[in-house]
């Protein structure tokens, strides 16, 4: 186990994937952006120069290209950069790639990996702060990964690039610099297996991506008050590990869902609905959602901060719940 940043682990995963599978190639070679992490990609460019294509700004064509190439056995990693640029290729991403297997009666697969940075990245303003995962979750046939730790980002990526199905893989600009232990070499973190990031008996906090970090911070604060929160990270939305989530709520009896999508039909809606439906009898109090409100994200820091879920909001909600 080496300590490394989330960005470095992602790049490591990409490197391992390229080194171990001829069929893997990259379209748009800067998955960790053009900022401080850019140089991490140098060794990938050095060793796999001919397997990276930096394409024109043509997200729709590139999205379709990925699905088409995957139908012929390729394993393209399609970097859409800011994930909301996926909206430009939305039809290909939600209405082509995920339908290939079903429409072809199981004869074809389109295991493309779409990639992008989601979320409120800090002064990105309304158009660059979005999180497409809730919308994507309503597209049957598409796998969705939301790694929250350096170890997960590498392992889930390697799993995605070997899976037989199309995947949308989402990272978060504010996760890129966080550090954690990461195993060397090839390993896979399977999709559909939630992880209990922190055990606790009093309340279950379900969160994904950056919100896992927020939830863990909140849990630290709560622990000082004698409240033990369990933080559960589904890690992937499709497939979705209902069992681990329900088991946690069964133990704690209380549910808080923290999510960075807008409220209505956001990821928290689905998680809350699932638990309400299948874990109703476990719930000792109403489930609580802490999400971005249904407001476009403004540019300026104080009004941006106001809208984003943070540890203080989670702590306050849990306190209220346990009152």
């Amino acid at each position, binding site marked *: 186990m080496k300590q490394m940043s989330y960005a470095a682990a992602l790049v490591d995963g990409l490197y391992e994937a390229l080194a171990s599978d001829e069929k893997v190639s990259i379209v748009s070679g800067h998955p960790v952006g053009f900022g401080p992490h850019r140089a991490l990609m140098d060794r990938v460019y050095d060793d796999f120069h001919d397997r990276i294509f930096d394409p024109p700004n043509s997200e729709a*064509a590139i999205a379709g290209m990925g699905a088409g190439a995957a139908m012929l056995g390729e394993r393209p990693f399609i970097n859409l950069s800011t994930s909301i640029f996926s909206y430009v290729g939305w039809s290909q991403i939600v209405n082509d790639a995920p339908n290939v297997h079903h429409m072809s009666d199981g004869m074809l697969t389109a295991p493309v990996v779409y990639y992008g940075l989601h979320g409120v990245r800090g002064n990105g303003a309304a158009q660059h702060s979005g999180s497409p995962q809730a919308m994507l979750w309503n597209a049957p046939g598409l796998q969705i990964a939301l790694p929250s730790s350096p170890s997960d980002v590498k392992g889930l990526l390697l799993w995605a690039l070997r899976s037989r199905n199309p995947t949308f893989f989402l990272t978060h600009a504010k996760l890129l610099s966080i550090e954690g232990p990461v195993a060397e070499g090839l390993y896979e973190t399977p999709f559909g297996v939630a992880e209990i990031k922190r055990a606790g008996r009093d309340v279950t906090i379900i969160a994904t991506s950056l919100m896992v970090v927020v939830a863990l911070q909140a849990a630290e604060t709560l622990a000082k008050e004698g409240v033990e929160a369990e933080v559960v990270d589904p890690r992937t939305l499709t497939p979705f590990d209902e069992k681990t989530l329900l088991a946690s709520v069964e133990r704690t009896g209380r549910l808080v869902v923290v999510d960075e999508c807008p409220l209505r039909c956001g990821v928290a809606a689905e998680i809350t609905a699932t638990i309400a439906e299948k874990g109703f009898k476990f719930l000792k109090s109403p489930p609580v959602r802490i999400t971005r409100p249904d407001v476009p994200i403004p540019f300026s820091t104080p009004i941006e901060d106001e809208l984003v879920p943070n540890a203080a909001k989670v702590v306050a909600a849990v306190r209220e719940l346990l009152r």
Partner: protein
Amino acid sequence: MSSNSNPPLDKSTAQRMAERMLVMRRFEEKTLDLFQRKLIPGMYHLYIGQEAGGSAVLDALGSEDSLLTNHRGHGHVVGRGSDLGRSFSELLGKANGLTGGRGGSVHMCDPERGFLISSAILGSNISLALGAGYAIKRSGEKKVAVVFFGDASLEEGITFEVMNIAAMRKLPVLFALENNNLGAIALHEGGYSASNSVLKQFTRIPELFGVKTVQLLAGDTLASKIAGAREAVDYCRAGNGPVFCELQSVHWPGSNMVFAQMLTGVMDLGMAWGEREPQGEHAGWVRDHDPVLRMAREFIAAGLMSRDELLALDRKVCEEVECAAQFAIDSPLPEPQSAYHHVFA
């Protein structure tokens, strides 16, 4: 390709072409019949009138090549040699259809014959073909990815993006434009299918990106079309990059409305040699533009096939089609529970 300097066709090519075109036509006539008998649910689009260009391209391809089509793809699929019974079964939504009744008319697919799943979203299939070209190029194999699409796809921006990328990476993609716009009736005139662009000469689009173009004009001889299609495919296969091949046809007036109508009845080969005169509303089209009748005339004039050979071939095709349709009619519907299959591999 209006030059007349093409090498003369050989008999086996003529035989293949005649059979392919007859299969396309008889399949579609039967499809219309089945639809009118309410055996085909949902939307469908007939390939009638476009047989010449499509057949020429299909004839130039090898078994290793990849193909994609769009919503108007029956002709391409049966012309590629897909089982007629399973093709009809697909249109009827039967369990033994090409995709088990999952795709239906607009998503015909036959991977065994290189036919990848087709998108019915205008422009999308062109981007999927770009990916097929990307895969072929990476594999280093000398294959071609062909995508058939209609003129309306040239109104979608993605098509321009694809051409740029295909040209940039020299990908082996053959863009086969089914331009059935000649004589089509536009939406605002009460029709449906006419393209709606200030651009009238479609080859100017690939030219913009330096993509080689080949035109198979509606009036060209089949010999010339075959030569043009071969030139296009060979250029692409040799690794020179993409080609844009315009397959022009005179719009079959029966499909001017959303629901096709065969106002002049099924094709009668006798009309090719004056044994009978076309009657009815679309008689003019039949007389002057029907590509199957034109094929018959051309082959007879060139001594490539006789009337009797053509009639015999047609009878054989008609029987196969009839038999395939009956197979489809007799086939079972899919089990309801199978709906849940194949979401994930």
